[in-house]
């Protein structure tokens, strides 16, 4: 039996013949996510030369390798052995990133739906969303999309039943316990409650990506005027 306090690797399993997944307990938990990040870091440090990629999920670490060059069974055994030695490694002091958000009108087409879900006013939704700090658990989906958690239960509205074909860049959205920012125009099923002038991914910047796992994020409400000034 797995104790609720257990945050270690539960199993290492194959995802096809060119990837292996180390699974931690399946829940949104900062301690688990930190351990996953520490494990990913250890794998990169030791095997960077032979791994194609190392990807952190909420509670998984997936490694990609070339099955013609690397023995998957050997790598699996290595991962199991390394999993026994992941420490409680702390992130170097988490960066807090301030994200300005305009929650007005057409920037927030789903704000009313989220308020209906939470049986509260739209003002209360905004206060709850901007009223706490979030952790970046992973960056994935498309370049620069940060999955952040955990959204207050009251406004944790599920994904929309039918995804939009085009969500605008900078849209700030909620899905279940998660919140995120769409970096570019893309299809998307999350509830859109605001828009930020920030660009999570900008290839023209020296550092193209703003977010990385372990970062902390604070949303700050801004007016439409302020939004226009910062765009």
């Amino acid at each position, binding site marked *: 039996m797995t104790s609720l306090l257990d945050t270690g690797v539960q199993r290492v*399993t*194959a*995802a*096809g*013949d*060119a*990837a292996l*997944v180390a*699974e931690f307990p*399946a*829940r*949104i938990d900062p301690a688990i996510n930190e351990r996953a990040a520490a494990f*990913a870091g250890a794998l990169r440090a030791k095997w960077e030369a032979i791994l*194609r*990629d*190392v*990807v*952190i*999920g*909420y*509670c*998984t670490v*997936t490694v*990609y390798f070339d*099955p*013609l060059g690397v023995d*998957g*069974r050997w790598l699996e055994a290595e991962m199991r052995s390394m999993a026994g030695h992941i420490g409680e490694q702390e992130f170097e002091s988490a960066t807090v990133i301030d994200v300005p958000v305009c929650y007005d009108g057409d920037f927030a087409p789903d704000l009313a739906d989220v308020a209906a879900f939470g049986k509260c006013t739209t003002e209360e939704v905004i206060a709850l969303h901007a009223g706490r700090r979030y952790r970046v658990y*992973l*960056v*994935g*989906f*498309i*370049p*620069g*999309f940060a*999955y952040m958690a955990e959204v207050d239960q009251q406004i944790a509205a599920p994904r929309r039943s039918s995804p939009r074909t085009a969500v605008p860049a900078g849209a700030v959205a909620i899905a279940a316990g998660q919140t995120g920012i769409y*970096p*570019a125009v*893309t299809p998307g099923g999350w509830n859109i409650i605001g828009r930020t002038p920030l660009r999570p*991914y900008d*290839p023209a910047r020296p550092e193209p*990506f703003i977010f*990385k*796992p372990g970062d902390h994020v604070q949303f700050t409400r801004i007016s439409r005027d302020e939004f226009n000034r910062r765009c």
Partner: protein
Amino acid sequence: MASLTIVRPGMLTTIQDLGRWGHQASGVPVAGPMDSYSHRLANRLVANDDSAATLEITLLGPELEATGDVLCAVAGAQFDLTTDSGTVSCGRAFELKHGARLRFGRRTAGARASLAVRGGFDVVPVFGSRATSVISRMGPFGGRPLAPGDILPVGHQPARTDSVSGPYALPLPQGGARLRAIPGPHDAMFTPDAINVFFSGTYTVTPASNRMGYRLEGPSVARAGGGDILSDATPLGSVQVPLSGQPILLMADRQTTGGYPKIATVISADTPLAGQLAPGDWVQFSPCTRAEALDALHRLERRLAGHAS
């Protein structure tokens, strides 16, 4: 410098190499060719490295014009190919003379062809790769499909030193394909009956399919209960099952992570074949072990190296 100019782009023509690896942790998709075997074969036919950038051509092919003499080869889907000086064959290198045009005509098998040029397409790499990711707008030409007037620079073409001894072409699907897949990683989220349904059913590639993935239609695959998973990595060939029970086969332009449970993963030896499927084709999945997958991959490599089996 030699180049090819797009006269007509065809349905969806993009520049691809072996993919943008190493940046998925920032959400950067791998992209790359749908049929990596034919990409590599086309490169070998013009004595390039496997990693050189090629054109991936989808269903309806383009018309291109050469500036300078360009050595070309086409592999993968079978098209009728003509140049100003007559017919040319898929699977064999040919020279396109300065000012001459190459036209892709009728397609007789497969869905996607790779066009390689000696020296590769010399476009600026983004995060170390020349692959086009349409969904994330990343890669050459801003990550968009090629358009009329685009000029594709051809890299330095050293004198050929060797004639390439014949690698074998990928056998193309005839109306459909049986793909071998390793169960998991989330097979425990499905009932044994659902896994049986998945591996015995016949699915159809629907028109809502693209380089990101194939939406399949067929026997519904039921979950054992519970919702989606917490988002994790999505390898090439993963078969996601949303609540609808209709599987999605993730292909070259897949997103880096996803929240649907994955019932199985198509083996590396069979993803090129999957890349040759078109809407309307049938698909079946057969269960496969990791040892069988590796054996199949070694056999495919020998085929590419020019050995018959």
